[in-house]
């Protein structure tokens, strides 16, 4: 039997999710026995045009070229799995969508703006093509990747775990930073997958895995306000890594630029 063929594609991103593959360590060697990895630039394989069973896509759509390239990836792949915050919601670079000042900023920053070809708005992969599975996180975790590959190799639907960080935080028996220290923790509205990494080290979750199921973002924002967080600080909790995820965008915008006199809509 032929081994399933895999590609890992890069779009606008920091490569951190590709590094999650490389950080698999021994599991990567085992994986290599199960599948054939044909395209994976961080690991040195380059064959971007090849047809595969599973294409992992890291990064957002930020340039006209990427819009074309993702169509090609989709056409060449049986399953398309977007990995990481950039691919699933647009990532950090999508912060530029908030202001709608693409041309002004480009012209102010670059000496020769005519060479810069970027989209006015950054888009997640699912905005352009059908995505079969989304793995959220900045970066994704190795466990998520392995579980997804294993399920696809078994030809079963991967588990889409949309539970909150809180559930895992309590399983890990971490002490709640929100209750003990009034920390603006995003755990109650953020999807699990990280193993409650930040709260386990006494730090408030900053929502890098994007919204959980039924995220009560407005309620949490009101709680942050009750802790004395100013509107701008509340907006920054929601509008950071996953600013374009609808639930975070909705609540973040309520507080964004509010009360500062320069609201732009």
């Amino acid at each position, binding site marked *: 039997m032929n081994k399933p063929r895999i590609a890992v594609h890069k779009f606008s991103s920091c490569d951190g999710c590709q590094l999650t593959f490389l950080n698999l360590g021994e*599991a990567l060697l085992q994986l290599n026995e199960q599948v054939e990895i044909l395209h994976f630039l961080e690991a040195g394989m380059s064959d971007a045009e090849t047809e595969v069973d599973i294409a992992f896509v890291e990064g957002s759509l930020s340039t006209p070229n990427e819009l074309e390239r993702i169509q090609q990836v989709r056409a060449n792949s049986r399953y398309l799995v977007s990995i990481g915050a950039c691919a699933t919601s647009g990532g950090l670079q999508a912060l530029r969508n908030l202001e709608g000042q693409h041309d002004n900023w480009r012209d102010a920053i670059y000496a020769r703006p005519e060479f810069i070809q970027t989209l006015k708005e950054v888009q997640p992969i699912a905005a352009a093509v059908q995505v079969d599975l989304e793995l959220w996180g900045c970066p994704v975790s190795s466990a998520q990747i392995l579980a997804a590959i294993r399920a696809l190799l078994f030809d079963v639907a991967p588990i889409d775990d949309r539970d*909150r960080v*809180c*559930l895992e935080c*309590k399983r890990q028996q*971490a002490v709640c930073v929100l209750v003990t220290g009034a920390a603006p923790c995003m755990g109650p509205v953020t999807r699990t997958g990280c193993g409650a990494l930040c709260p386990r080290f006494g730090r408030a979750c900053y929502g890098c895995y994007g919204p959980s199921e039924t995220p009560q973002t407005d309620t949490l924002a009101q709680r942050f306000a009750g802790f004395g967080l100013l509107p701008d600080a509340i907006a920054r909790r929601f509008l950071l890594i996953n600013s374009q995820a609808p639930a975070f965008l909705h609540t973040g915008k309520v507080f964004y630029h509010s009360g500062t006199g320069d609201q732009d809509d």
Partner: protein
Amino acid sequence: MPASVYLPRRDLQCLLDLIVSQGYTLKGPQVIDGAILMRPLNSTSQLPKGLEQTQAPGEYRLQQTQGLRHFSWANGPQALKPLTFVPRETLWRSEAQPDGTLKFHESIDPPEPTAVLGVRGCDLAALALQDQHFAGDPYYQQRRQSLLLIAIDCSHPADTCFCASTRDGPDAKDGFDLALSELEEGFLVRAGSQQGTALMEQLQVSEPTLEQHQEAQSQLEQARQQQRHLPDFEPAELIQLNQHTAWDEVADACLSCGNCTSVCPSCFCFSESEAPELNGTESSHQRQWDSCFSEGHSYIHGHRFRPDTKGRYRQWLTHKFGSWVEQYGRSGCTGCGRCISWCPVGIDPLQVLTQLGETQS
């Protein structure tokens, strides 16, 4: 109440040493990350000393005082539950055989005997409820049977506590091996089992004085003066109130985060999942704490029966305070107040119950 003996504070270490010498791994309260958690313990110097706490809806803070008491606080986010109903465990492993069949291996290691110091009445009552629920569960039972429980009569209930009204505290009622009542100078110790009696007989103790008995009695009376009470309601009728507007109000306030169920010492829901190895021939079957506030909890092939927070909150409250009575002979609430303190938005289920008892305008 069985006869008590007096153990001076300086001899508490003897009790710890005695327990360890009998082969137990001892766990006891320690300050970790701003809360009191049960952690491996071998010296009284690891215990909180003069530590008090403030608990309020959505708030938990520790305060250091000059006092000498080790147990002048009510509780932490967890006590016994993670020791018996562990947050995540492998139930069995399966292995594909060359002929295509599967071989199953039960994953059940004999636990090490564990002693826990500092258990409260509310925790013991919740443990008794979990004992009922997990009566036929070998994973739970083998850990449960290896427990030695050293209880403490609660002298400093928090503002969130209401164990007096559920009749589960503030003193340890039963289900313990030894129970301690902490006084200014030492402890009154009583046994609740043969094991406890055997331990007590090996301690250097004295007859308590009348004053010591009176001190214990008066601080217990004081601990019973709790401001929070379980409101009057008819458990069987809760489920009939499914159209009450109180559910809409609490659904607006609730994050559906499940923290109340995770810290609840009697909540027992779990989910199970398969964790296959990458090689595709081995897999472990796991269970982990789940919550009626998660979407998976009400998922039955192709349909989510409780898609929104309103339905989930209603499920939790009507089960905990209503249908538990039918299932287990009593309410699932033992008055520990953890669901109030550890709710990130400070929802108080007692207020919701009170609201449900009021007629709607």
